[in-house]
């Protein structure tokens, strides 16, 4: 059963000159629960748009996107927000942490939106920070952490509500090779241990090779889809 299902999805932007630009062009994609998928492609190929679409941050111009039982295409703001809160964990290249806030305060935020109390959120943040190896950085401000630690805090924030899907957009883009590998290992571990579906967007083939399935996008179209989805194969769409 696919936890992520995209049918004939297109995303068309209108440019300043009035012409139309297809960021995604007739995408069909099914991702089963618990899978570790890497989406690769060059800059501007539509990787991030695809990720945003799956995460409910953006909506398609055409087609349908169904994620964890939610129809992204038709959902309203409240439903989409709740969906992002409960089902999705986002990890970004530039971490997007509040630099003057502590690691705990950053991690707690999604739980605050889930109507948890401050104490509950703080307790869960402690657990999640311990999970990513930052138990001792609980009260450390984000601007006092290294880049790798910042990304770990971002991962702790992404998993605090036990989402079913983790969406990572270039999670190693701002990290050195060694730290990047550690982050990918951490994400793999979460994927394996918590059966969280993991979708990583990257242009780094080394990172992508860690995934069990690799999807390549060019010009808004999936040009290859290889890996565990019924064995390695090339897909033309």
């Amino acid at each position, binding site marked *: 059963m696919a936890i992520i299902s995209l049918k004939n999805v297109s995303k068309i932007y209108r440019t300043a000159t009035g012409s139309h630009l297809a960021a995604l062009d007739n995408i069909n994609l099914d991702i089963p629960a618990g899978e570790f998928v890497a989406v690769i492609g060059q800059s501007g190929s539509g990787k*991030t*748009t695809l990720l*945003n679409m799956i*995460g409910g*941050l*953006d909506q398609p111009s055409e087609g349908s996107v169904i994620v964890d039982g939610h129809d992204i295409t038709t959902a309203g*703001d*409240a439903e989409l*927000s*709740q969906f*992002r*809160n*409960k089902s*999705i964990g*986002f990890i*970004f290249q*530039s971490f*997007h942490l*509040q*630099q*003057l*806030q502590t690691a705990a*305060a950053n991690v707690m*935020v*999604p739980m*605050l*939106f*889930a*109507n*948890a*109390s*401050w104490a509950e959120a703080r307790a869960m943040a402690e657990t999640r920070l311990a999970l990513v190896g930052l138990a001792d950085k609980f009260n450390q401000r984000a601007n006092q952490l290294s880049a790798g630690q910042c990304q770990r805090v971002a991962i702790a*924030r992404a998993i605090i*509500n036990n989402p079913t899907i983790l969406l990572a957009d270039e999670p190693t883009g701002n990290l050195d090779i060694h730290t990047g590998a550690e982050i990918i290992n951490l994400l793999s571990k979460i994927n394996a241990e918590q059966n969280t579906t993991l979708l990583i967007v990257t242009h780094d083939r080394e990172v992508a090779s860690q995934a069990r399935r690799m999807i390549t996008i060019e010009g808004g179209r999936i040009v290859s889809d290889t890996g565990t989805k019924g064995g390695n194969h090339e897909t033309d769409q």
Partner: protein
Amino acid sequence: MKLTNKMLLACEGVMAKKGRTFMLALGVSVGTAALVFLVSIIFGAKAYVDKNVGAIRENLLVVKMKEKDSTPAKALDDSAYRAIENSAGPVKGIYRELPIDPRLGILIKDASAPFKVFDVVGVDVGLFKSYPQFKHNDVQPVNLKDVTFPTPTPVPPIVQEEKEDYVPILVPNIFMEFVSTLGGGGGNDTIVEEFRKYVEGRATFYIVVDDNKAYRCKVVGRDNSVSRFSIAVPYRYAVEWNKEQRPDRPLPNYSRFVVEANEIKDLDNIKENIVLAGYLPQPTEVQDMSIIVSRGATYLFAVAVTFCLIIALVAAIGIFNGLSISIMEQAPRIGILRSVGGTRSDISSIYLIEAFVIGLVGCLIGIVAAHLFMWGSDIALRDFLSDVTNLRGIDTLFSWDFPKVLYIRLGALGLGVFTSLFAGVGPAYRAARLNPAVVLRAG
């Protein structure tokens, strides 16, 4: 999302940009302080005006000839006087004024004609020196405290006094010099009272008409204004004098009656009674003046309110700009909040709470600052201004009446917080409408 959680995130947002928050709060503080200062000083000025102007002859009504609507016009003669006396109800007094009443000034002017120049005796006349009509070259100004008033010799036979109807022969400011020698001035109750006792107890005024006739006058004063003290002569003598001295000019009807109520609250009843009797009661000129001055104070108040609204508008624009810039700077944070489950409503609430917090903190600081500043300047400037402006009896520059003080500050707080919230609506709406995908990519 719980309100407490929204407040928590709003406070985090406020603390994340301390510099901008400080500047915004400072702007609100200055605006609020200016507002409190302005309203307090206007209220203080209004209270001063009300106290000093309102105290002057507020319990008087003037009855004049009816004008257009009176057919025929009712003459203000003795029968009219009696009619008003009978209809007005309990009053403190009813005074008649003549158009050519024997005011001292007129007497003096007329004295250059065939009449004998009269003397004012029995009192030191140094105070009259400034009046050119007096030719007493030998008199010198003296301090009344050092004067022993002699019994005038010789005093012509005094026309016997009667109890009724003393007509004030007003000499504006004639007694001011008396009071000056005692070290006081208008509006100082103690000095006025002292003056009243001093003069009434020791000085006797006579108007000597000729070798065989003198009128004994008395000092009358109806309120706390020294300039309202008058020398009064029995009306009957004034009439007699008029007939004797100016037989070709019969005493005309009264120009007006002045009705003095026991208390201000009686005025409406008295007025109604007099109207029913067919006469036209009106406020006195002093009342008119006090109304004009009060209106002036009200006008000043309206100006102050206008200034307050302008201050609020300027503050609103400042807050709007500050929050708008802040939101643009915080776009990635908004993107994150949206990506982790924040609805548009949550985001707008968070930013409205930020505006509220900034407004509240700014207002509180402004109110405390204004309070301290006013308190300090009241102490430092009160005496100085009192001397410079010659406005006696300035107790305070600002309004410190307890309920009013509270209302002014609460009003300022309410207006400041409302202005902040109002100015925050636009930026909060914009924050809520930001596309998270776009701002996250840009960030």
